[in-house]
């Protein structure tokens, strides 16, 4: 399948200077696009990696400049007009221009939307706007909370998803007193099986983190505008010094929506990453795309990179169908979790106990292998990724048998 390549001198504008926006621009240049490329980013920093924000950067192990994908000079060298601290405020599809909040307008021949997602915040009515309440999305969020990470401080983490649990692990490592509350009956409810949840619950228990499941926040309470305690549904009160909300994200679709593009749990794109306007593409956390019989939106680095590359290929006329191969990782204490595939829709889970303390859970729908969570089991992850991408499903009995050689599964 080929798309018509665009005029190599076409003007391309990219809104959102995160992982997907950065990758799209770089790939366009790698593929030989010669026309002007403008990358518009609301944040003050050059495009950077987010995963370390809840890991090494929060721990204080790496400096800010090491998060940047490239130094600023790179954008000049590759003629990518990077506009930082610059907000795109409207898209005029008839005139094919993007309006910036500062009053400037930029004309485009093709537009790429990589606006990402923003964290859900705790409502002001329950104290979400008190001083000392943070979220974990941007460098600025982490820089704002960094000074609170002092030994002995009490931190409450609202939300037991991967980001909340990573923040809990860093906090515990730094000697804070950590409580995690999860409104659902268990942590990782939306993204993982009960077995994986139990594995991480035991890990956090062992590190002294208080994990409360089925514990919903009623309100944060403060004095002098600063958060002091959290009242849970049922009446118990947790005293806190600060709070981190990790309660999920919402895709940034407003700009696209106002421009009349189709929205469906994200900016809706087709197999070639095109939105309902053929001159506008979207990729990364903001985009929902066809997957099997439905449509999904992924929040992961791998997806942002591969989808943005597919956009660049589409624009330059080479093979362009985006074929998602989901993968993800999470680091907590000394455990590296690696996930291959997407577990949504699973109905049974097989367990494989590794030799050197590793563990993996294999998600099946019937006999079809959908995904694998591998904890300190990189070899399982690598094998599972290949199996899933090839659409191969070794039986649950075979994978659970410790005598089964991993490499044999590939042959």
């Amino acid at each position: 399948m080929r798309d018509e390549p665009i005029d190599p001198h076409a003007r391309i504008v990219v809104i959102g200077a995160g992982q997907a926006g950065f990758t799209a621009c770089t790939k366009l240049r790698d593929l030989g696009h010669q026309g002007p490329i403008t990358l518009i980013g609301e944040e003050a920093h050059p495009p950077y990696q987010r995963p370390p924000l809840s890991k090494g950067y929060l721990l204080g192990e790496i400096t800010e400049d090491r998060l940047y994908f490239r130094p600023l000079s790179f954008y000049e060298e590759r003629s990518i007009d990077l506009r930082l601290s610059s907000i795109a405020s409207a898209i005029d599809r008839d005139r094919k221009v993007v309006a910036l909040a500062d009053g400037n307008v930029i004309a485009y021949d093709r537009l790429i939307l990589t606006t990402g997602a923003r964290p859900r915040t705790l409502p002001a009515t329950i104290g979400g706007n008190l001083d000392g309440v943070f979220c974990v999305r941007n460098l600025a969020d982490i820089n704002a909370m960094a000074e609170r990470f002092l030994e002995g401080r009490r931190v409450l983490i609202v939300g037991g998803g991967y980001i909340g649990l990573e923040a809990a692990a860093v906090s515990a490592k730094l000697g804070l007193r950590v409580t995690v509350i999860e409104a659902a009956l268990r942590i990782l409810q939306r993204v993982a099986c009960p077995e994986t949840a139990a594995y991480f619950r035991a890990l956090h228990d062992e590190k002294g983190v208080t994990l409360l499941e089925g514990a919903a926040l009623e309100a944060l309470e403060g004095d002098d505008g600063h958060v002091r305690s959290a009242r849970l549904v049922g009446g118990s009160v947790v005293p806190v010094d600060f709070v981190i909300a990790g309660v999920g994200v919402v895709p940034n679709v407003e700009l696209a929506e106002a421009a009349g593009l189709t929205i469906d749990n994200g900016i809706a794109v087709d197999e070639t990453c095109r939105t309902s306007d053929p001159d506008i593409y979207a990729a990364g956390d903001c985009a929902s795309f066809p997957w099997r019989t439905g449509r999904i939106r992924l929040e992961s680095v791998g997806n942002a990179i591969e989808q943005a590359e597919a956009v660049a290929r589409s624009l330059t006329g080479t093979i362009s169908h985006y074929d998602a191969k989901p993968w993800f990782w999470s680091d907590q204490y000394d455990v590296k979790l690696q996930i291959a595939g997407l577990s949504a829709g699973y109905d049974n889970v097989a367990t494989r106990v590794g030799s050197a303390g590793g563990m993996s859970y294999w998600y099946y729908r019937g006999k079809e292998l959908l995904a694998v969570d591998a904890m300190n089991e990189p070899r399982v992850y690598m094998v599972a990724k290949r199996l899933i991408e090839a659409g191969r499903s070794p039986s649950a009995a075979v994978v659970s048998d410790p005598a089964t050689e991993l490499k044999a599964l590939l042959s």
Partner: protein
Amino acid sequence: MPKISVVAKDGTVFEIQAEPGTSVMENAVRNSVPGIEAECGGACACATCHVYVDEAWQEKVGLPGPIEADMLDFAYDVRPASRLSCQIKVADGLDGLVVLVPERQS
């Protein structure tokens, strides 16, 4: 600052002044060496930063750690000289280090 050389698959040599403590991968990426994808940004989670350490340097650079070794086990065209470049830390003792980028990452 130690100088390291990363040899791209077309033979182009990238000579880089590398800050001690940074990884070989970071230096290669910052200098846009083709063929180092480093999708996970150094988390030892993707195996797309695979390099071969030049023979003269293998002993100084040392062997991969356990997680790295397991990831490498399934990389493309693994050899005894294979390392994940995000796991090699630049140090003064590695001044002059030479690593080579493989044909492809996966």
